[in-house]
């Protein structure tokens, strides 16, 4: 089935992805669906979205860590493809990216890892635009997207690619059935918000506060304001930048988010663990804590909100 079959010419094709039964979501050649991501968040609301940098400290370890997060309850997993100039990242993820690059992580190694992973959670790649452009003989986004689709990635997040510059990548993603996730910042308002929300697919990545990524001790008031601005848009909203504790996840979901995104707090665990086995155990426990925290925020009794949190180091 080609892209024309999946995406109706008129109207926003994204409106056609409804329900978890896949009836309105076309099936890709590899068995995946047109928007695994949006469906996954809606089915698992509130969803836990986790980030780790691929290749930190090695691609082998990343495989073990991703599988641990999957077991622990992550509903979507973002994998960072390291770029040498990560201007949107704070010190924690910068350091992880440096470790990954020092370990010799390449785009091909990254794609092979993804190809090798078997997770329940759909996988997204998070990387910078130059990495997307350079995968292939010329500066062109298509070879990257083709390969991403081939290994089963469901979406792409490019933090230095604003909606204004995204046409080539969006076209390639549409062609291959990948979601292109955009970030909504605390400074995004008015017409820009309209523009971004009309182009979002999968989910809107709500940046909880100004600045760069990194675990924080609290939930910013900017989160509440951003979620209020987005309340009328029928797209799943997931909040990231600074989330590190189950309680943060609770607060974010209470504020109206459909998902919480956690990265730096997981990288800290990877960096602090003595060996891979310890890292695996702690990541699984952390994912369980975060997921339980998010679920508590719904207050609708789906899972038991009073269930004790699992032990974690």
């Amino acid at each position: 089935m080609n892209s024309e079959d999946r995406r109706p010419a008129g109207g926003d094709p994204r409106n056609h992805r409804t329900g978890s039964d896949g009836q309105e979501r076309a099936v890709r050649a590899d068995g995946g669906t047109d928007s695994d991501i949006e469906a996954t968040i809606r089915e698992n609301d509130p969803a836990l979205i986790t980030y780790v940098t691929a290749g930190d400290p090695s691609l082998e370890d990343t495989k073990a860590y991703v599988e641990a997060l999957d077991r622990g309850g992550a509903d979507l997993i973002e994998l960072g493809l390291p770029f040498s100039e990560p201007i949107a990242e704070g010190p924690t993820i910068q350091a992880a990216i440096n470790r990954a690059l020092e370990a010799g992580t390449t785009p091909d190694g990254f794609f092979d890892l993804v190809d090798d992973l078997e997770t329940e959670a759909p996988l997204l790649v998070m990387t910078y635009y130059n990495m997307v452009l350079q995968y292939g003989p010329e500066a062109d986004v298509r070879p990257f997207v083709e390969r991403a689709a081939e290994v089963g990635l469901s979406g792409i997040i490019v933090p230095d690619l604003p909606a204004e510059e995204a046409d080539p990548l969006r076209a390639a993603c549409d062609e291959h059935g990948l979601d292109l996730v955009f970030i909504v910042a605390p400074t995004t308002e008015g017409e820009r918000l309209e523009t971004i929300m009309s182009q979002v697919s999968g989910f809107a990545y709500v940046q909880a506060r100004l600045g760069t990524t990194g675990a924080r001790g609290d939930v910013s008031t900017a989160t509440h304001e951003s979620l209020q601005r987005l309340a009328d848009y029928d797209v799943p909203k997931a909040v990231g930048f600074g989330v590190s504790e189950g309680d943060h996840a609770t607060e974010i979901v209470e504020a109206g988010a459909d998902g919480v995104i956690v990265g730096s707090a997981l990288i800290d665990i990877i960096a602090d663990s003595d060996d891979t086995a310890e890292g695996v155990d702690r990541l699984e426990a952390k994912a369980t804590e975060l997921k339980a925290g998010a679920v508590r925020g719904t207050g609708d009794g789906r899972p038991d909100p009073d269930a004790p949190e699992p032990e974690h180091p």
Partner: protein
Amino acid sequence: MSTDDRDADPTFGDYGGQYVPEALMPALQELEDAYERYVLENEDGFMDEFRERLREFGGRPTPLQRADRLSERYDREIYLKREDLLHGGAHKLNNALGQVLLAKYMGKERIVAETGAGQHGTATAMAAAHLEMPCEIYMGRTDVNRQRPNVYRMRMNGAEVNPVDAGSATLKEAINETMRDWATTVENTHYVIGSIVGPHPFPKLVRDFQAVIGQETREQIQEQAGRLPDSVIACAGGGSNTMGTFHAFVDDEESAELRSTDDSSGQSPREHVGLYAVEAGGSSLEIDEENALAPNSATLSTGTDGVLHGAMTKLLQSGDGQIMESHSVSAGLDYAGVGPELSHLVETGRVTPVSVGDEAALNGFHRLSRLEGIIPALETSHAFGYLEESHGDLGDLIVVNVSGRGDKDLETVLEETEKRDLEAAPDVEVFDGE
């Protein structure tokens, strides 16, 4: 071809654009708006105030000096545009003063900036002190160590200097860190970017503030030599002095296309002015692909298209897209990117990219110091290295932009000279044993 594109187009041909985190996009829109109103339309007399401050505080116009001994040496007319005589000792003040003033007009309360060799940092610190704006400067640790006099000067003017330890701890890392600061403080802070790099509208904004160099040069050479030069030479790192010097000459191109345009408009054909961007060839133009190391900073000559620091431009990068560590004996040229407008002008053939290595630049430094009594910045010294090598191909009337003075580089020059047997150098051992 004209680059006097006074519109909202964020690109130069295939280059330019706005590749930044979403949080910064509203600030770029605000800056575009301010650029159009204040810089292009002179709203509230902004440009009048800018020019007045450049005269009174900056010391403009700077002279165009005939270099008698260089002219004799090369048997042709050599003129020097003396940006080293601008307040602060480099062309950088043109842009720093313009942007800090613009930030004031925009109601911003704080300035951040990156700096490589320190000249942009000192210029920004001076402008900020002059205009009463709090100011923080990010500088790679390597550059802090090799440019100490400039660090002192920034602090004297009340700026905070934040060393950056990441990567090779040079200009590229300083830009990353300043962008991170800006992404956190964007609501009240303006980022005074130091070259014609970065997302739109910075490349146009910085070029317009620097264009005064070429405008003065054009008038002065016609007055002093009676015609336009055959060649204009400027060193290129990010490219702000390069583009500032070239901008007024970009249309002076004797091409079939222009001749036909000129015929139809009834004007006479233009003289052709060759434009030469001299990059840092470092120790070699060969790239170490495996270790992602470029032993040079010759982006225009050897780079490939990609996105760095907010713009599509030419870059020193690996096949996978990782940005390489560049090298130059000159901190101010040590950068793996270059301005998108220069990439475009090189791609269309209007600007000729050339390069000279560390050694030729050091010889250029000593030659100019001894022959003309001008101690040039190591950046500028590359232009004089190129003049020595290629004057025979550059016509009879040549202008070289002296982008800055070399006081800041004396320690580096002594150290690097000692390692080499340089024909133009004095005996540097006597500096130690007095």
